């Protein structure tokens, strides 16, 4: 995971798209929720977001 984060950081640097970093993080967290919520106990939490 750490190597992936490093790679993403390097990628943002090369692409000069630092503004994508917070979006990456938010979407990553949001996406992770979706992944975890599939058939897991996190499901009710995601419903409360809406």
């Amino acid at each position, binding site marked *: 995971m750490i*190597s*992936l984060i490093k*790679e*993403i950081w390097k*990628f943002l640097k090369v*692409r000069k*798209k630092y503004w*994508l970093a917070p*979006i*990456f993080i938010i*979407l*990553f967290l*949001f*996406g*992770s929720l*979706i*992944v975890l919520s*599939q058939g897991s106990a996190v499901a009710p939490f995601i419903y409360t977001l809406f």
Partner: protein
Amino acid sequence: MTAILGISAFYHDSAACLIIDGEIISAVQEERFTRIKHDASYPKNAIESLLIQSNLNLSDIDFVVFYEKPLLKFERLLETYLVNAPKGFRSFRMAMPVWLREKLFLKYQLTTKLKLLDKNFDENKLYFPEHHFSHAASAFYPSPFEEAVVLTLDGVGEWATTTVGIGRANKLEILKEIHFPDSIGLLYSAITYYLGFRVNSGEYKVMGLAPYGESKYKDLILNNLIDLKDDGSFKLNQEYFNYAAGTTMVNEKFCNLFGEPVRESENSLLTQFHMDMAASIQEVIEEIVLKISFYLKKTYQIENLCLAGGVALNCVANGKILREKIFKDIWIQPAAGDAGGALGGALGLWYQELNNERVVLPKKDSMKGSYLGPKFSDQEIERELINLKANYDHLSEDQMIEKTSLALLNGEAVGWFQGRMEFGPRALGGRSILGDPRSEQMQKLLNLKVKFRESFRPFAPSILREDLNKWFKLNCDSPYMLLVDEIDEDLKLEMSIDQKKLFGIDKLNIKRSEIPAVTHVDYSARIQTVHEETNPIYHKLLTAFKKKTNCPVLVNTSFNVRGEPIVGSPSDAFKCFMGTDMEFLAIGNFVLRKDDQKESLKENYKDKYELD
């Protein structure tokens, strides 16, 4: 020795290829092993097969190239969702699990899987070129040109959907790009979806359907869906499409524009509207491709053109570029879709990054006829046939050719499994079903009883290269079946006034030429020229057939049924033979007749594969 393994996977058509010191040694698609059409999974079997064929271990491989940049693709996804938010949430919800579980960790995944073959595999051996660079490299480096303009057109890679580059000696530079969501590949796929065919698979059916229709909707498409400039650059009007952030290709506004809903499934009735729609999009694509080609010639003044990307499989458009004589010569990568990306990625590394010299042989590409897959010795074939309890005759090569040509003469559908398997979507006389093109019933027989597919689908001719001019208007090599041209005027049979009045599918039953089974309703044919140097045994068969009939042409269709990947092994070939109305099978020097096989070995093949 420097060995490079190229891999394409995780989207569609996964494949692997091996090049050693710049020579293309082998290439094969994973679907041929897993028997799942367009299989996108990690090409484990393909990689193992390549290594076994070349007597290599993974530790002997110096570099591994994956055909695209996953992070750049992820960036495109995120930015697209962001632009369309909150509209694309459903699609986002579907895409994210796959990305967060697998695709984002692609480097780790590849390393883990490759470590199963070589526990010391070093991830620093991995390279990730851009998707369209891989396509462009697959078109330029194997081409017979020292210098060429390279045009790639497909659905989408990372951001690019269309690119223009220049290749000179061992260098390839991408100069221009058109980015997602503007894509003629996706425009064609949108119409494919609208006509009820499967996206990424049914596009060639739309192309086959087009000659039955009239291009009534061309102006409607050009005036509403696409803003096409004189240089061939374009912008799609996203008001009509839903693919950027939705889960369908087109929206309601699109349907309202043409006045018909999306055709629900492949089993729904195909009407004249669908044929007219297919004809219209085909003409639009041709217009775009021609405009780009004219612009490229005018701007760069280079004599040769190389093409790759899924749209380059549109052989009707390719034929138009050729006939317009815009370029002195054109060359199209036979595995123009994503499978070919594996090859392009590997070649790109060898020439561009490692800066190796590129030797070009005039008029001779380095694809080896695209016969780059596995082959089977007579012992291996016999072992499989014995296991299958098949009844067979083991003959000499000459006897096998003689028997096969006689079967063809008798109007039988012949399974033909010889030598190395083809790389790319076309069967080129290695894994083919063959028939007599002079037979009026052959198209129907092959479509309905052998391939179990729609009756409108045309078949392609294989012809001895030396006889090409006498039978078709085409006047250049077309070894990969990627060029369409008309049948020679003298061989055409004029339609009567009543016949000319017929519409759509009704035209199918008219005998249009001396070789009706391979003459489409507009007198066109997707031609494969057969060359003694690249496929001597198929050349021999055509020569034997010509001796008997004076006709150097055979119907050549892929050895599979609808929805099935092309057969990969003798066992696959035998099963397909037993599951269809094929009457004769030649595998290596073994011939099998359906009548000699046990009834119990027959199986219901028709429903075995999902519709493609």
